[in-house]
């Protein structure tokens, strides 16, 4: 029973805003769709902390996380008209952020082998990835995970998304999400018990 209770808690978290907030969020999304920056700002505020945390853990750097969130929000604002279903906003925003984080990571790894052509890009990458305050331990735990596993763990544990929701955000089948999550948790458990 405990099992179900926690699972339920995690699941509901993502939808905790209930009916009353749904309408407000829908309204804000539709306003944002007509290029209303104020409305988008208000929407963003609802998820800003979640987005920042997500980026921090995935990228392991506050500076990069800040850039990634800014990039993600700007990108989201431009393509918001392509968002069809208002309720999907949060998942959609995470999806964009996840893509941007992946971009950062892949560029970081590519940097080791290639000379960057883009001056702006160079600048971004030269910012030394600082370690996170007070969460060095967590950083270590996460370091044992692959990027996608890290994302799955954060979305599941912190944001309370279930596997099908995560599959939407990360574009992979729900079954894969479940197995990856299970594998990641197993590895983290080992790390925690060290």
């Amino acid at each position: 029973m405990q099992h179900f209770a926690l699972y339920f808690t995690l699941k509901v978290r993502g939808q905790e805003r209930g009916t009353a907030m749904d309408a407000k969020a829908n309204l804000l999304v539709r306003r944002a769709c007509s290029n209303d920056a104020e409305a988008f700002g208000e929407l963003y505020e609802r998820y800003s902390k979640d987005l920042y945390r997500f980026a921090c853990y995935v990228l392991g750097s506050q500076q990069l996380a800040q850039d990634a969130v800014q990039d993600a929000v700007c990108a989201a604002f431009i393509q918001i008209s392509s968002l069809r279903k208002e309720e999907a906003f949060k998942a959609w925003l995470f999806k964009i952020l996840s893509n941007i984080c992946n971009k950062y990571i892949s560029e970081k790894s590519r940097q080791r082998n290639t000379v960057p052509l883009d001056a702006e890009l160079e600048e971004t990458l030269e910012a030394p990835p600082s370690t996170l305050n007070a969460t060095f331990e967590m950083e270590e735990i996460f370091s044992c995970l692959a990027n996608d596993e890290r994302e799955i763990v954060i979305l599941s544990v912190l944001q309370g998304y279930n596997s099908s929701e995560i599959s939407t955000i990360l574009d992979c089948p729900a079954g894969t999400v479940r197995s990856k999550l299970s594998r990641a948790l197993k590895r983290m458990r080992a790390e925690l018990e060290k």
Partner: protein
Amino acid sequence: MKKRDIETASRIKIKLEDFEAKNPLPSELSKESITEKLKQQSVPVKKKAKIIEMKRLTSIAAAVIIIFGAVTAFSLFGGSSGLKLAIDNLNGKTAAAQNADISTAKNNKQILDIFKKLSTAAAKQSNRYTFNSALGAEKGTADYTPTAQGDTAANETSNNNTYGETNVQVKGIDEPDVMKNDGNYLYTVTNGNQVNIYSLLPADNMKLVSTIKFAEHVSKSEYANSLFVKGDLLVVFSDVNTYKVFKETTTAPAETNPDSTGTAETPAVPDDTATDAAGSTQGSQSSPGSAGSARTGADTAEPATAADTTDAANTAANDTKSVYGYNNYPGYYYSKSESVCTIYDISDRAAPKEIKKISQDGSFISARLINSEIYILSSYYVDLYAKNYLEDICFPAVAVDGKSQNISAADISITKNPDPSYLVVCGLNLDDLNTEPDTKAVLGGGSEAYCTADSLFASRTVYAYNEQPRDWGGDVTVVSSNDSYSTEIYQFAIGGGKVEFENSGKVAGQILNQFSMDQYNGYFRIATTQGDWGNTSSNVFILNDKLDVVGKIEKIAPKEQIFAVRFTGDTGYVVTYEQTDPLFVLDLSDPTAPKITGQLKLPGFSSYLQPVTDTLLLGIGQNGDTDGTTQGIKISLFDVSDPANPKEIDKYIIKGDCYTEAANNHKALMTYPEKVLFGIPVVKYDYQTYTDSSSSSGSVSTGVAFDGIVSTFDTFTVQNSKIVPVRSYKEPDVKSSDASTYYGGISRGTYVNDTLYTLSGAALTSFSMDTGSVLGTLKIDQPLYNYYFYGLRGPMVMY
């Protein structure tokens, strides 16, 4: 998830949440700085650059897909339909978990089914025949033309004037009225058939700058009811009624449009003819009432031949003239109401230019203007007797510049026990008129509106036909239950000209008016009266953001009804009345435990409460003594500084048989905050004594006869806790017996600096507030019609 995994997850979660406390969101990621960044990005040039970047981003995202793609059963990225599908799945439960009493329509069929059911039920209840002609065919713009008169904005002055604004419920949220003042010009709805723009300055040389006329046809009427002014935009609300008259006594329906010939109308109404012709062959129908059963067969009648149709239509055309004659009382007429919002560009006040017209089904309830956003509410009643056309009429439509579109099922919320009527809410943004207006509807209905900056509340009174059998010693008698009225509240989230249905709630009893509703600190408060006449009591309910009742005060003042309500912050004031006027002071600071803190019994009653300061409250209403009401208007000043002990510290009584619209319509109260000055239109009924000796018996009788009205605009101020009458303004050269005053009494007063303006159906007059002397008068063209009168919400058509 395995149990072990769950444990690990919760351990990680605790550690992760620790992060938030130690790593606050950097200021660069604050809402404000992000919004600022987005605003800069909105500049088209930058946007282009960003789009290029997005392309780059997409390719990277595509790379991500490749990583997962190999094992992806259905790839979702890029395809919005795929995303939609998955998200539907994701959110399916959320949508279903909405308030159980209300749900979003699944599809058009669901709505049609509801109406079919309602129609069948209605047919059973009523012996009225089923009407089944072509309906709502006419949907177009009415015939009116802006006409320029007089000088072109000759007297422009700087807009540093202090000027009168409409007295509204919520500060900063404008309500439409028959008159708006922008400091230089006065915009008025005059006698319903014209909108006039006057230049107010100089006060001794006011001018009619332009007029927009609203035309009247027999089959279609358009009456302006109120307006808004926002900068160089004029927003006029009008009610359009389209009539189709079908006569029982002839073989054909009378499409009573004098502007067109019967023949021309024929193709549009073949069904009418078929139905009526078939109907009349089945028996005599001398009156609409008796026609009930005879008409039933008409539904399945074959269409008439073309020749029949033409003949019938000709007959109809000939009958047109006498259609309003008593002998030719129309057997049945269908009337379709539309609430029309027309937006004019008035950058040239002398030549208003129509730039947008939004027509929504239903009669106008009200509207609100918040900055540049307008929200319009209408109530659309679906005629259940138009059985064969239910499909056409059971969806409310909104027409933008003549292009009509039904509101889609996804934008319709259905209440549990719907009446065949819709509440239609339309939002638009005056700054962006190219964007389509946003519309939502609630199948249920609505009557009063209360609006805050981000929420719109509409109320609907629901009558539960609640018959209960009761045993009276052997005989079972059916009596109706006491608590038969309840009020449903529909909440919409609003912003940016967009509307989203948010929630619904329900409380016992009926509300009085928009002042019965209020929102403060996230809680919604509503005052209602319940019970049958003579057995009433009142309640105040406090509802949370989900519109669930969390606190209440019930059975306030048994046997009395609510006459006025006003909520200000943590305090509520309720006036109930039976013979004397108790003013109740309510403490609402704890939403879960509201309580009555004090009450005051007084003769007469207040029907409108206006806060003057935090501790002073003005009441406008009816004079009275301990036995009930007596003649006269009573203005009370209440000291509410001690909630346990409210006091009437002063009163001002306008004697005689008189009435003020301000007692029942807050918009008629003029407020001049800088001078703490108030003004109300006062109508006094004038009686003349007469002596009649013409009786055949030779006796002489004397009496009083109604001789017209005396109309004034009375101002008073509040000084040192006293009501001080200042002046009573009266239009010059107006006799009480003048017919013009009959519907031309002063309806509004306003001001620019030290000049007071009064508006009646007959004249616009300016007065010096210093001396009271008349500075100028502009006569207003009298309307040609004599079959309507001027009411609170514009004219009423009397047929």
